[in-house]
């Protein structure tokens, strides 16, 4: 009977449990997590904060998930290091493993800022606990300053908007959501959010904090009741690096999700993935990616050889009711259609005869058909280009490919 | 007034019996009368009859015509016809005995004849065909005359009445033959006409039959294409003609005839139990002679020169029992009719539907 140990309890960890159990029903699985909760969905914390998701529904898997999958859990326990086939715990204990998965995710990055220490109510927005902490401080009209106009900052802003907070978002960049949107899409989204009353101060950073206000580099001063710092995240790679494993931007793994240390695997936000749309290595901090990497890792740990391929950056997210779906890379020839009045924006990016990336805003229906074009690297010559441009539709594929996809006929 | 045979089709139930001595021993006619009498309840007094084979050894080379006449006029006309076509060697009334339950008898005459050679030659027919056509002619054309027996060294005796009474009436105890068949009739709606009683005969073929064939009109309309006239509209008549057609004209063996009129089902033909050549033959018969398949219930005993054949419809919807004792073979609707004349048998069995029993005289050593 194999002993599987998983450090972490989020999507990659759960993916690994499911991956292991699809192969090995008998081995023992131990999950070690420094959080105190049954596995919950990290992206749901903004929905929870907003009140849209209750305590019961924030869980990523049903309550009996661990029992059903015969998983032993060690909540509120921190793994300190990996040593000779053991995981050393913060409580001094040791857990032996045959196969170990590092699914430690990432942690908020808080850059050094002058006067930050003086701010009493300052938060990051990464865990349920952090959301709970914010929730306690926010009431109608609470003035919130959010540093960072990225995904986390704006998801937090949206939640707080529903709680009737008075929100100002400051970012050093001159546009919002630069990691997923181009300039134009950013503008539309910014306008959309601003119409709801949330203020942006872009191209500026904090020069100096005092207890309830921040003096910005552009000269403005923003008063706040609470501060949320959401400028970025850093992967939790220490366990691997300290044990001698290779770490660059994140933990380096092979396509089996194995680290450079034997019997030690890694998956999720703490790892580096290969983005096949841009042919570059990067951290793809996305829940689907984490789950699938975890699942692949789990299968390999249990002995079924599986590769993790075709990873691409992709995001489905909405702010203040306006949906965005994006995927791939935006480096290439762009085909853009826009109907600003309806807040509809569509950008398709082509390179090397392939669809490489897209941004859909407003009308996101059936976006996965585009995603599959990128992931499966279907040549544009295989599809009706005009139909592709018109909207995501199966009709754009040739009859043979349609039959393969829809009629179960393999050619 | 009720219509008689030939005016209307009359279904009938019946009893049949027959036996043969394979060694050719001549057996007195009282025996067949006794046998059929044991199935009294299967008849209703509206018809009975017998066929005896080997009964006219002294005239074995002549055709023996037994003819019913309604009147002397029809007799005169018929005899004129006979004289034109045949050399009449002997003619007489058939001897009968008055019987209280046998009434309304027609004139019953017997002629021993040979075709006139000149007429026969002119007809370009073989002798039996010539005789058959003459018989059909008389029956079809001469009002009030009816040839009811026309074979060599054999004879049919029939009447309206219970068969045992008919046997007494015709004084069958005075005849002896190597094979006999008998019939008791249970027609459902006839006044009873003497010609309509069984056996039905053409040349030496006689049929006694129990049943009602559902294929009648299909069979009739087919066989009538070949010069037969089914004047009586009875099953027995059409079956006799079918035997005559297939045996005498098509030269098919009685075994093969059974494969036509009681053909195996396709499921049986295709079941693999037959050899390929046999399968081909069965298929051929069912194709070529499809209109001679007889359906509906029947059990028949065919008498012919030198033998008897018994056959049931392929579903065996009518009873039929067979038995053997030494050189004797017995066939009857019911076992009692056999036990009555042969209480201890060597073997007794119930033939399967469509499975013919063909008994022929042993070759003379």
């Amino acid at each position, binding site marked *: 009977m194999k002993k599987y140990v998983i450090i972490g309890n989020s999507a990659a960890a759960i993916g690994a449990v499911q991956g292991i159990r699809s192969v090995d029903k008998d081995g023992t699985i131990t999950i070690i997590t420094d959080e105190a909760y049954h596995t919950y969905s990290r992206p749901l914390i903004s929905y929870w904060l907003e009140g849209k998701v209750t305590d019961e529904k924030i869980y990523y898997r049903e309550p009996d998930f661990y029992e059903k999958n015969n998983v032993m859990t060690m909540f509120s326990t921190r793994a300190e290091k990996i040593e000779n086939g053991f995981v050393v715990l913060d409580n001094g204990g040791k857990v032996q493993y045959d196969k170990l998965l590092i699914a430690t995710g990432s942690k908020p990055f808080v850059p050094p800022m002058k006067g930050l220490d003086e701010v009493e109510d300052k938060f990051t927005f990464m865990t349920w606990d952090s959301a709970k902490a914010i929730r306690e401080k926010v009431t109608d009209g609470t003035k919130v300053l959010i540093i960072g106009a990225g995904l986390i900052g704006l998801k937090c802003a949206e939640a707080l908007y529903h709680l009737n907070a008075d929100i100002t978002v400051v970012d050093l960049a001159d546009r919002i959501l630069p990691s997923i949107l181009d300039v134009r899409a950013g503008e539309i989204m910014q306008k959309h959010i601003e119409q709801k009353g949330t203020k942006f101060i872009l191209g500026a950073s904090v020069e100096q904090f005092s207890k309830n206000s921040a003096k910005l580099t552009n000269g403005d001063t923003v008063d706040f009741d609470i501060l949320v710092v959401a400028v970025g995240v850093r992967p939790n790679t220490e366990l691997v690096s300290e044990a001698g494993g290779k770490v660059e931007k994140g933990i380096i793994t092979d396509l089996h999700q194995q680290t450079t240390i034997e019997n030690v695997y890694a998956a999720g936000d703490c790892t580096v993935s290969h983005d096949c749309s841009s042919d570059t290595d990067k951290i793809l901090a996305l829940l689907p990616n984490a789950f699938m990497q975890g699942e692949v890792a789990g299968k390999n740990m249990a002995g079924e050889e599986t590769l993790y391929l075709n990873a691409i950056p992709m995001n489905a997210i909405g702010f203040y009711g306006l949906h965005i779906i994006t995927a791939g890379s935006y480096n290439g020839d762009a085909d853009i259609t826009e109907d600003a009045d309806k807040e509809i924006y569509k950008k398709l990016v082509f390179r090397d005869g392939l669809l490489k990336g897209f941004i859909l805003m407003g009308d996101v229906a059936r976006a996965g058909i585009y995603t599959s074009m990128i992931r499966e690297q279907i040549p544009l010559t295989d599809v009706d280009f005009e139909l592709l441009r018109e909207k995501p539709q199966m009709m754009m594929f040739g009859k043979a490919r349609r039959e393969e996809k829809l009629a179960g006929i393999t050619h | 007034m009720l219509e008689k045979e030939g005016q209307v*089709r009359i*279904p*009938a*139930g019946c009893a049949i019996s027959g036996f043969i001595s394979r060694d050719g021993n001549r057996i007195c006619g009282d025996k067949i009368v006794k046998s059929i009498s044991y199935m009294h309840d299967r008849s209703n007094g509206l018809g009975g009859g017998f066929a005896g084979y080997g009964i006219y050894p002294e005239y074995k080379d002549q055709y023996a015509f037994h003819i019913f006449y309604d009147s002397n006029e029809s007799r005169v006309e018929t005899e004129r016809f006979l004289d034109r076509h045949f050399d009449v060697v002997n003619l007489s009334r058939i001897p009968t005995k008055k019987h209280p339950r046998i009434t309304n008898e027609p004139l019953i005459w017997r002629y021993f004849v040979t075709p006139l050679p000149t007429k026969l030659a002119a007809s370009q027919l073989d002798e039996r065909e010539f005789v058959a056509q003459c018989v059909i002619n008389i029956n079809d054309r001469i009002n009030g005359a009816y040839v009811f027996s026309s074979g060599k060294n054999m004879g049919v005796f029939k009447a309206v009445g219970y068969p045992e009474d008919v046997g007494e009436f015709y004084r069958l105890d005075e005849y002896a033959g190597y094979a006999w068949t008998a019939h008791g009739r249970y027609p*459902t709606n006839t006044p009873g006409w003497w010609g309509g009683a069984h056996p039905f005969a053409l040349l030496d073929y006689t049929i006694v039959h129990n*049943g*009602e064939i*559902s*294929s*009648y*009109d*299909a*069979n009739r*309309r*087919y066989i*009538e*294409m*070949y010069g037969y006239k089914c004047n009586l509209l009875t099953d027995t008549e059409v079956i006799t003609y079918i035997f005559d057609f297939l045996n005498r*004209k*098509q*030269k*098919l063996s009685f075994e*093969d005839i059974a494969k036509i009129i009681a*053909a195996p*089902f*396709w*499921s049986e033909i295709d079941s693999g139990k037959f050899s390929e*050549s046999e399968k*081909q*033959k069965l*298929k*051929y*018969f*069912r*194709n*070529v*002679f*499809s*209109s001679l*398949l*007889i*359906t*509906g*219930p029947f059990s028949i005993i065919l008498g012919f020169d030198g033998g008897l054949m018994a056959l049931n419809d*392929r*579903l065996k*919807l009518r009873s039929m029992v067979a038995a053997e004792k030494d050189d004797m073979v017995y066939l009857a609707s019911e076992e009692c009719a056999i036990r009555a004349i042969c209480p201890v048998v060597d073997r007794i069995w119930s033939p399967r539907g469509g499975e013919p029993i063909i008994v022929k005289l042993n070759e003379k050593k």
Partner: protein
Amino acid sequence: MALNYFQPLFDVIRDKDRCIKCQACARQCANEVHRYDGDLDKMISNSQQCVDCQRCVCICPTSALKIVDNPNKFRNNSNWSQQTMTEVYKQAETGGVLLSAMGNPKEYPVYWDKILLNASQVTNPPIDPLREPMETKVFLGKKPKDVTFNEDGSVNTETTPTLELSTPIMFSAMSYGSISRNAHESLARAATELGIFYNTGEGGLHKDFYQYGANTIVQVASGRFGVFKDYLETGAAIEIKMGQGAKPGIGGHLPGAKILEDVSRTRMIPMGTDAISPAPHHDIYSIEDLRQLVLSLKEATEYKKPVIVKIAAVHNVAAIASGIARSGADIIAIDGYRGGTGAAPTRIRDNVGIPIELALASVDQRLRDEGIRNEVSVVVAGSIRSSSDVVKAIALGADACYIGTAALLALGCHLCRSCQTGKCNWGIATQRPDLVKRLNPNIGYERLVNLVHAWDHEIKEMMGGMGINSVEALRGNRLMLRGIGLNEKELEILGIQHAGQ
């Protein structure tokens, strides 16, 4: 024209409480009767174009539609019916010959409905087809006059070529062109599964269907469309079409609009040209010419295929049949005046020919009287509507029946009799690809198989009731029939007695 002399035949009735405006009716009507009006948010109907094909009624998911006769009527007149008057108006407007499709719909007597079947009681047991074997296999073709024997004395079992049918039903000739490819495929596959035959009609045989050749009768008609060596050799039998019940004495005319690529290739005529079948075969002006064609076709196919000669039932049909029986043909097909068509002049369809029942009875009797009934098998067509019609036809003397209209009904036809327009909403009598695809042959063939299985089962039930367990004992067994309400002459021709006799 601002003045409509005649009114639409039908009214489209839409139950607004039931209609959900799904527009299925609008999408399915090739005659563009239904339309969704977005401004009004309403379904609108144009009855003028409705042919009462019932497609919309059948497809409506809420049963919101009914097509009814337009109650508007001209003043009553027992002599000048509204239809007669309407036809005069139409001809006054167009100057053209009236065209119609499918069979003669007039109120002539239907003899099948005046003939009753027998059943066994007491003296003869009925047979239960669920318990006992019940046989419907038939062979079509010439029977040898006499049995011959091989040298070893065994029976020589060789015969001239025959068709073996699992049940005495075949699908009538309907050409590719007059009906769709999918209709043909349905018929071909059904015939193959059923062990019977379908008939190409006069339009040749599509290459894709050569695989069903063993169950295909290939037709040679006066236009000789698509006739060549491979075609003749592919079929199980060859049918010479001399006439058609719906239009005796008339040829055919398939408009160029229906001669699309596949039809053109199959018929071997240029795309878009009219396919005109002459009224006569121009090489057959007499019976001896027919004999030559029969023998030519046999020669061309090495005497391996039976030859069928199909004629329309006309007044002297018995004499004609007798001639055909002596022509070397193996099978005579007779098509009665109610037989269907893809298009025929209305006056011809409705006024020429005789009923198949009478034609069959006289042909069968005539051939028997002449002693040549075994020279040929007789197949009848021309509105065989049910298994009881089949049973009656066989008892009258037919070897088998052709069904055309009934087969089309199985495929969805609702007898709107508008085949000539080429806009068949059921995908049958059309070449428009969007309409053709409405007939999915996977469904079509199954429905045909179901129909014939059902009829076969019913035939067995009826035979069993009569105490007959094989169809050959039914053939020509006219005693199993009685007339009802027929006069002496009709009974005499049919060769049956009246009920009660």
